[in-house]
């Protein structure tokens, strides 16, 4: 029961976290009108994941291991691109807010609606296939025992609740802090996703060095402990991290964090 619950929690958090921050951002910047696009993106991701899973099962096909890992890895790296773009977009928004260039707000925030949809879809769809496969396995086991399915759904529910709490916490922050905190959080999330994507590509054999570990703290942070699950779900932290994973994580943070925190130069016109 607990094992399956933690799987649901982890997979759920990975998907829900970015979405909750995206929603918080849209709400804080009075762009509630864009919320349906978020749900559309989530819907598309769920539909594709379930659809692919169903098509594969009904046609008695399976993804080869390499294909599945490549798919997850590539999507993760694409997702990092979008999240990075969102981080700087938020930074700009924060600057616009603080510099009270409210007139330019709309222009500055003229994020294509497609981007919102895509961002949500990527955040959810990245792990969607694995989650859908898992869901079907749990559903099939329901013939003998409903515990796996119940545990899994409960885990998803807890993940959604945590994501909601993060959203609530975020929207109660004052404006200036809001952008810094959520942006900073997203940097670490994105770094984690990038490292995770690298690991997938290593597993698929596209990148080398799968067994060259930078560190292994599995003993201290068991992946099936609640804190291990939270760390993995939120920051994609892996207790056994390869050198390539650690390198890209450090590189990403080292490049993006200073850029994000660099002093704001107030300019007369904001560029989109």
């Amino acid at each position: 029961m607990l094992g399956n619950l933690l799987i649901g929690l982890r997979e759920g958090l990975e998907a829900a976290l970015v979405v909750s921050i995206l929603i918080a951002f849209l709400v804080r910047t009075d762009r509630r009108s864009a919320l349906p696009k978020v749900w559309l993106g989530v819907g598309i991701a769920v539909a594709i994941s379930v659809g692919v899973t169903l098509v594969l099962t009904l046609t008695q096909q399976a993804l080869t291991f390499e294909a599945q890992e490549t798919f997850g890895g590539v999507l993760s790296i694409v997702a990092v691109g979008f999240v990075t773009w969102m981080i700087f977009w938020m930074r700009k928004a924060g600057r616009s807010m603080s510099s009270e260039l409210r007139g330019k707000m709309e222009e500055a925030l003229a994020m294509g609606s497609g981007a919102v949809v895509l961002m949500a879809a990527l955040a959810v769809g990245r792990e969607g296939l694995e989650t859908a496969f898992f869901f079907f396995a749990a559903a099939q086991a329901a013939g003998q025992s409903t515990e796996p399915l119940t545990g899994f759904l409960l885990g998803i529910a807890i993940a959604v609740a945590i994501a909601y709490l993060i959203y609530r916490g975020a929207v109660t922050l004052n404006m200036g802090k809001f952008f810094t905190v959520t942006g900073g959080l997203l940097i670490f999330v994105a770094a984690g996703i990038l490292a995770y994507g690298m690991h997938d590509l290593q597993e698929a054999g596209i990148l080398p060095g799968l067994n060259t570990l930078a560190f292994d703290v599995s003993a201290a942070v068991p992946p099936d402990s609640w804190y291990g699950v939270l760390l993995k779900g939120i920051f994609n932290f892996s207790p056994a991290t390869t050198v390539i994973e650690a390198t890209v994580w450090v590189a990403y943070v080292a490049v993006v964090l200073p850029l994000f925190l660099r002093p704001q130069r107030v300019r007369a016109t904001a560029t989109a």
Partner: protein
Amino acid sequence: MSTFSRRRLLGWTGAGAAAAGIGAVAGCAAPAATAPAQLVVPFRGEHQAGIVTPAQDRLHFVALDVLTDDPEKLKALLQRWTAAAERMTAGAETTPGGATGGNPNSPPDDTGEALGLPAASLTLTFGVGASLFAKLGLDPSLVPAGLADLPPFAGDQLDPTLSGGDLCIQACSDDPQVAVHAVRNLVRMGFGTTAVRWSQLGFGRTSSTSTTQETHRNLFGFKDGTNNLKAEDPDGLRDQVWVSPDQGPAWLAGGSYLVARRIRMHIEIWDRTSLVEQEVIIGRTKDRGAPIGAAAEFDPADFAAVDETGAPRIAVDAHIRLASAEALGGVKILRRGYNFVDGSDGQGHLNAGLFFIAFMNDPQAQFVPMQRALATSDVLMEYIEHTGSAVFACPAGLGEGSYWGQSLFEA
């Protein structure tokens, strides 16, 4: 990812209905003729399968000679045997796709005659003979006392080519083809390391090893083994069948000795014997198998009862009296024999009889006194002769990941 079949989809909605159906059917006894064919007997467990397993209908028994003096070579074969045996007892080929899925230019791994047949309760029971130890140069302290040669018995006509052996495999199944397939494939895997010394087909189990089973009849037409030890008698099995740790050697604890005797029956002569004489010789009635003077098969035999002339109702030399635990100081064995008809003898008679198999934990104290009493006093001896004899030590059951004989080779 799992195959998500329509059948299973239906299963979600149909589970309740199916459960109700099972409830409805549970009241009817399943016809015994169809059910057993599908049964899979677990290969691993505390004791080897095929000893107290309810006796299946068919037997293929093989005794093998080991051709190597290198224990490592035999060990490697035993590991391959165990893997194949485990697969076959589950109803599978010796290797995945072994019969037709391999290279078309290679001989198939699996001989294929069991394709499409269920496991049919196949059990494969493994044992080692006394001759193995010296051949492999094993420590003499490992030789179990129970493997000491059986003494000669009156009337023995033992044929050396039908006796002894370094190893044995007893295959029992409800389907003769399944049993033969199992022995054939194991023999084939052994070429170069082992060779067949003798083998025996059997049918129509003559003993019941479970209270759930009817007692079958031997080729004399009598119920045989009514008073057998049964699987449902754990105390009896502990005392009489399983080798206890203090009997030694350690590698055989929880195992048992298998005594095999090929008993040729002169059935043509027996068939010319009057019914009353047949019943007197055996000590039971032919119709129901009841002890003389009793009404039903499982009624206790009253060996003290006398008729109006003062003579014992059950003759002093009746088979059941001589073989009874009462006459032998409480000794019992677990009999698991089979009938055989190996064609004809070239002299106008069927080469038929009983392939006697019995399991016990001390052959010298159990089988020897029983056979001695029978050989010297049993009138039945006029109609039978023992033509083959062998004793094997069958180790305890296999735990997960272990192989046949591991306790001996890693002792």
